[in-house]
Structure formats: structure tokens, C-alpha cells
């Protein structure tokens, strides 16, 4: 037995990057989520490699119309004789793209307003928070419907409608976090050294809230994809575009329910479910890793 005192294990206070990664890998949910996202991203990016323009052109395809799955068409065909499988692959592109762009808009809007509201705690901050609270309270789908109706049908208006109806919760989170960060001593120091408001917000606070933005963004994408599908289903999207939402809209309007054409109804919805689940799982996992408090409590 050696005489040297046994090394006392210290509780690691801040997990390092590698330990965060390790923590992520240990969570089965996170692994599943990330795997889903990787696969879907690969399909979306690689779609042009295996989906050709003539596969989507209704005047060029010659499959049976609205036919149940067969060997040649593993997920059956749609009303125009196009392969549902190829449509599904292609449909991932607008669905993801709109989700991500809308999220980016949401994050920019939410972060700017959250930071401002947290930093300027006077009348400006209170005013911004009032507006934010107002947006949180408003029922989002009627608002999004109204916005889309005003801006006209199409992807742009859907994207904007989603951003306008989702930024408020991000702003609120960001404000709370900004308040917490600004209470720390190093901000005091920066102020004493004569840092300007902008410098404090951009150089000091922003880097500290980035993890939160990341988590919030991942979870917002999930919501945005759902919203995009819902708005498209309600007929506010571009009906000639192939997206999961419009596939469902078309199938529903075409009466595929009555015809029992499940193959046009089930796959797009499942795809949405899986992608949303992927983002949610990943978001929650990242949340846990970045915020140990949540890991303990949830």
C-alpha cells in the first residue's frame, strides 16, 4: 500500500467538448435523432442524383395512375402516375428548406429582440417584452393563415408567416438568458472598461447565449416543419411544388381517403413525423448536454 495520499476525485465542474460529445453518444435518443437527421439530409441533398426531372414531370411519366405499391413502384404511384417514393424523396427538399429558412429567420428575429429586451431594461426593453408577450398569446395558426392570405400563396409567405408566429418564444428565452449573463461580474468589468452597448451585446452576451440559440433552433425547426405542412395542407402553399405538405394536400383533395389509397397518405405524414422527431430528439439531447440542470431535473 503506497503511502501517498489517494488522489481525490474532483467533481468536474464544466464538461469539456469531448465529454459533451461522449455524453451525446451515450443517449440513445440523441443517437437516433442524429441518425435520422443525417439520413434525411443525405436524401434531401442527394435527391437530384436519383430523382430526375422526368420522374417528376407528369407529362413524361407513364406509371399506372394511383396504383398500390408494386415492385417497380415500392410506394405506389400518385394520381398522375408518378412514383410516390421519388416524390417523397424530392419532397424532403422544400419541407426541410422552408423549415430551416423559417427557423433562421425566427432565430435572428428572436435573438435580436431578446438581446435588446434583456440589455435595455428600461422603457425599450419593457416595450419589446410587451410586444413579445402579445405575440406569444396570439393564436398562431389563425395569425399565420391571415398573414399567408395577405401575402398570397407560396413558399415565401409561408416561411415569413412561420417566422412571425414563432420568434416570440425565442425572444423570451433569449431575454431571460441575457439577463442572467449580464448579471455576471465580467459584464460589470466590461462596462467599467467602457465597452459600448453594442460591444457588450455582441462580444460578451451573444457568445454566452449561443448554446441556447442552438437548442432553441433545433427545436424550432421541428415546429417549423410541422407548421409548413399544416399551412400547405390548408392550401396556403405552392400547390404545384412537391413537398410533403402539398402531397398530403393533393391526396386529401383528390379523395384518396375514400379510394383507400393509403400509399399516398401514409408516407408523407410518416416522413414529417420522423423528421420532426429527429429534430426534437436531437434538440432535447443537445439541451441536456449543454444544460446539466435540465439533465438532472428532466
Amino acid at each position, binding site marked *: 500500500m503506497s503511502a501517498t495520499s489517494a488522489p481525490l476525485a474532483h467533481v468536474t465542474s464544466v464538461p469539456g467538448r469531448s465529454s459533451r460529445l461522449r455524453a451525446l453518444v451515450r443517449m440513445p435518443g440523441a443517437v437516433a435523432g442524429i441518425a435520422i437527421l443525417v439520413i434525411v439530409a443525405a436524401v434531401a441533398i442527394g435527391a437530384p442524383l436519383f430523382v430526375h426531372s422526368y420522374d417528376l414531370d407528369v*407529362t413524361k411519366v407513364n406509371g399506372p395512375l394511383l396504383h398500390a405499391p408494386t415492385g417497380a413502384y415500392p410506394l405506389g404511384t400518385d394520381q398522375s402516375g408518378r412514383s410516390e417514393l421519388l416524390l417523397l424523396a424530392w419532397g424532403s427538399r422544400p419541407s426541410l428548406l422552408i423549415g430551416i429558412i423559417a427557423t433562421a429567420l425566427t432565430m435572428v428575429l428572436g435573438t435580436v429582440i431578446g438581446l435588446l429586451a434583456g440589455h435595455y431594461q428600461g422603457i425599450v426593453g419593457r416595450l419589446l417584452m410587451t410586444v413579445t408577450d402579445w405575440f406569444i398569446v396570439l393564436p398562431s395558426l389563425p395569425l399565420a393563415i391571415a398573414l399567408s392570405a395577405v401575402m*398570397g400563396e*407560396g413558399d415565401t409567405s409561408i416561411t415569413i408567416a412561420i417566422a412571425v408566429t414563432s420568434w416570440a418564444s425565442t425572444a423570451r428565452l433569449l431575454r431571460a438568458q441575457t439577463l442572467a449573463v449580464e448579471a455576471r461580474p465580467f459584464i460589470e468589468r466590461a462596462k467599467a472598461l467602457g465597452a459600448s452597448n453594442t460591444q457588450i451585446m455582441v462580444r460578451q452576451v451573444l457568445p454566452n447565449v449561443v448554446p441556447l440559440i442552438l437548442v432553441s433552433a433545433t427545436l424550432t425547426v421541428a415546429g417549423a416543419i410541422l407548421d409548413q405542412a399544416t399551412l400547405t395542407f390548408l392550401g396556403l402553399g405552392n400547390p404545384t411544388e412537391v413537398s410533403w405538405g402539398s402531397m398530403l394536400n*393533393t391526396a386529401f383533395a383528390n379523395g384518396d381517403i*375514400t*379510394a383507400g389509397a393509403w400509399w399516398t397518405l401514409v408516407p408523407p405524414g410518416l416522413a414529417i413525423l420522423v423528421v420532426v422527431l429527429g429534430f426534437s430528439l436531437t434538440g432535447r439531447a443537445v439541451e441536456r448536454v449543454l444544460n446539466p440542470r435540465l439533465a438532472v431535473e428532466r
Partner: protein
Amino acid sequence: MTDCPSRPEPRLRARVVALLAGALVFACAIVGLSTAPGAARAASSSTSTFIGELDTSVSNFNPFLAFEQGEIDTNDMIYPTLTFGNEKNLPGPWLAKSWSISPNKLTWTFHLRTGLKWSDGTPLTASDVTWTYNLIMHNSAAATANGTLVAGFKSVTAPNASTVVITTKQPLANVLNDVMVIPIVPEHIWKAHVKKIGTFTNTTTPVVGYGPYVFTGYQPGQSVTLTASKSFFGGVPKYHRLILNYYANSSAAVAALRSGAIDSVGPNEMTSTEWKSLEHVPGVKAYQNVSNDWYAVEVNSGAKTRSGKPMGNGNPLLHNPVIRRAIALGINRNELVQKTVGGTAVATGSYLTVAFPQWYWTPPASQAQNYNPAKANAMLTKAGFPKGKNGYRYDKKTGKELSFRLGIHSDYANDAATANYLKGWMKDIGINLNVQAMSNTQLNDNLAIGDWDLLMDQWAEGADPTYLLSIQTCGVLPLNKNGSGGNTDSFFCNHRYDQLYNAEQHEFNLAKREADIKAMEKILYNADDDIILYDDNYLWATRTNYLKGYVYGSANSQGLYPLQNYELGWTKAIPAASTSGGGSSSTLIIVIIVVVVLLGGGGLLATLRRRRTAEERE
């Protein structure tokens, strides 16, 4: 907050509540099952109820205002009209037994049936007719629905209780068709409503009227109940009750027909996919009527005001008839019909529809603009629009690409489906279509001010073609650039066409009128302003195992039935002995009961076990 822990276990209470809730849901399901297929029909055929589908939502049965098809259908059953569309869809006698026209063609004399009484017992006389017509002619609010039809009338008078005389300003060829759709209301009831005629909804049942049925029940937006009239001159309808139900969603209506909950669905809401799913259902007859509804691509060949000032931002390339013709040749109507509407339409390029064979024009084979992309390509190249590197043609003079906007209705699924085909075909002939989905209102707004290149459009032809022909005349071009004063459909204006139009509506020689009208159709066809794609058949389905004697008419060579006043079907149908086979559903009920009992029992057992072990766990 509970204050005393020694009361009966709240946990137990919660479980009881949960059990009760479960039982309630289960009860609803079972009741639903028993209300569902067979049982309901058996019950209702004993009281002989015919249940049909309302075409549209209904909210206003004031015949002076009503314009939704469902409302018009209802009013057809409860109010008389002077003439009636018979089985050949020609004006036949109704309130008027017979009629005659003066040699100068300006005076029409209608001889009415006598001894008829409104449903409240008041005699129905010629003064009711004249009162109704005069109200429409002289009260702008009352003219909302049918004002246009009487616009050419000079006076409507009743020399005696059984005679009505209509004089027209000019000889009018379509009087008998027009009076066919103007319901006549009881003067003694409606006098009181004149002041507020523009807002009166006429939904307080029973409604005083005269017809095969009496309006006896109304559920806002949902359904209309009509009861057979005992005193209808044409005989008491066999079905004692007629319920017309509105299904907001066609799949619900189809499901109801399938389960036997209703006797008839059609014609507006069902998609071809849904209709086809009914073709092989036993006891169901799925059939199609030829249609008076065309579906077309409008081409903006140069929007202008009535005084000829150009307006709007339409692409000037479309002024070129070669390009318009190329577009027409580039469209494969037959494939469109086969693929977008499952073959349930008649591919045609004629402006007037197949529903009215006397006016329907078919181009001679030499002039037919059949699908011919090679020809279209050759024409365009020859006209100075060579193909660019990206496959799209451009104007050699200006370098501009042949790229047009195609406006489609975002709320109409068929527009989107069609647009996909048009885009593909146009690409084949080097034309780029930029599809823009917009709301109905937005699209119409753009149309009115000429801010469009191509758009999808749809019109129904009336019993008389004059109105539909009128929207292509120069007289309906807008007065100024904001589109006001206009009622045009594609800014078409052709003087030869206008001449024919003026001749046609005053022409009493049927053969001559037919020739005029067909000449007009030919002008439209060759102008390629309205590229008609097809006439969309009306899709119907009826329960043949419940009803007999339903009037379908006789099918043509393509298996299409003639366009019919469906009042005919409804009034002549006879209830058949119902043979509802509830076998499969009762098995299902048993299966469900067993499953629920098993689940419930399992849950109860689990609960009990849990209770027992609860003492031992922390």
C-alpha cells in the same frame, strides 16, 4: 382542497371517473354502430325518406337572392316556374299549360293551370306571377339573382287570373328558357318582405309555396327537409320526405352513400377518384351526366378598355396568334382528361358545351386543333422564335424568352394538377410557364385589370347560351383601366362575333340561330383566346337497392347520361324494399365488445393487483 384524508379513497374515485368516461365513449361508439349502416335505412324507408346531397352549402332561400346551387335546387322543389326543363332538357309545361307568341315576336302569352292553391290554401293565380316578375324588374335588390334574365322584358301583365302576358323590348329567342328558372312566390306572403327583400333569408319553415314538396325543416348550413305535397298536380311524390344534406367534404358524402345512409350523391363535390371508388360497390349506381361546365385556359391576347386603350401588364408576345395557336396545339386534351379527372370529362375545344347538343359545335377534322407538338414547334420556329440553350424559345427580334405566367386557383386542386401538365407540355414546345397559385379573388382581380398572361377558368352554360356568349363581346370590355364597368372573360373583342351575337338572340328560326351560334363558336375556337380543355362531367351515384324509378335519362354512346333537372329523379323515385346486410358490421360489433371487455378486464385485474401490492411498495 380535501381536508379529511379519511374520506373514500380519491384514487378510487378517479378510477371510477375514468371508467365512467371510458364507458361513455364506448357507449357512443356502440350507438354509433347501431345508428350506422343498415339499421338507420330500415327505419327511414318505412317512413319513405329520400336522402340526397345538397350541391352547396345553403343559407338563403329567398329566390330573389339565392344563387348557390343547393338553394336553387331547393327552391325548384317548392316554388312553381312558368316552364320546366323536361327529360330532354327543353322547356316544357309547368305552371303554364301552354303558350303562344305573337307574329311580331314581341308578346308571349302563357296560359296557366287553374285551381291551384299555395300550401297555405290561398289560390295561386296569374297575379302572383306578375307580382313576382315586376318585383324583379323594378326592385334592384330583388334583381340580384335573376335580374339579367328579365332585362329584355318590357312588361309582364295578367289580363285574367289564368293568363300571363310578357312583352319584350326586342324579339328575344330565349324567353322560354329564362322563365324556366325564375321561381314564382306567393304575393300575399312576400308583400310584407319587399322592404327588406335584400336581407330576407326565407328560412322560417314551413315556407308557403307550391310544388312537389313543401319546405318544412332547415338546419343552418346543414340540411333541408322537404315534405311531399299532397296537392301537387303532377301527383304526390312517392317518397314522403326528402332530406337534402350538405356534406362539407365529399369523402363524407361518399362514405354516407356507401354505408347506405343516403340515397344519392352528386354532382358537384365528388372527385373522380371518389366516384370511381363507388363503381364496384354493390347496390350503387355510379353514373355521369354530360356537363354544361367547361374548363379552359384563358389567354390574354391584349387587354384593352372598351375605347381600345391597352391596359394591364399582359405579355405582348401573346398578341401573336401564332404563339396562341402553338399553345393550343401543344395541349393534349385527351391525356388531360384521362389523367387529371380519370376520364370523367369530354375533351373538347368548343366554347359551348356538350350538354346542349343543339348548340354544340365540333370543328371539321381539317381545322381541329389536335395535340401536335411537332407542328407547334415548327410554327414557332418559322415565326421567328428559335429555341435557346435552356430549351426555351425566345423572340429573335427582342431576345425575350417565351415565358408566361399561368394563374391558377389555389383552392381548386384540379388547377394545380392541370398546371403540372400544361407546364410539361409547354416546355416541350419551348414555352416556359410560371405557375402562380392565388386566391380566387386575387385571380379575378388580376383578370379584371388585365394583369395576367394565362389563367385557368371555368364557366357553366345556362339553358340558353346567350349569356355565356355575351361575355366574349366587345360590349363587356371595361370602361377604364381599373376594370370597372367590365364583365369580360378574356378581353376578347371581334366585330363579326358581335354581329352574330346581336343576330342570334333575336333569331326565332332555330336552324338559323344554330348556324349563327356555331359560327361564333368557330370564331372563338380559331382565335385561341379561350382554349377550352374539356367539359367536366357531373358525377353521380345513387343507391339502386333502395330506390326504383329514378329518372336517369338514356345514356349516350360513351355511357354518359343527359343533363337532367334532378327534381325529376327525386320526384319520380320509388322506395324499394330495403335489404340491408348488416352482417359484417354486427360481427365487428361483437369483435369490438370482446376486445373492450378483455381490455377492461385486464385493466381491472392489473388495478386490483396493484392495489394489493401497493401496501408493500414505496
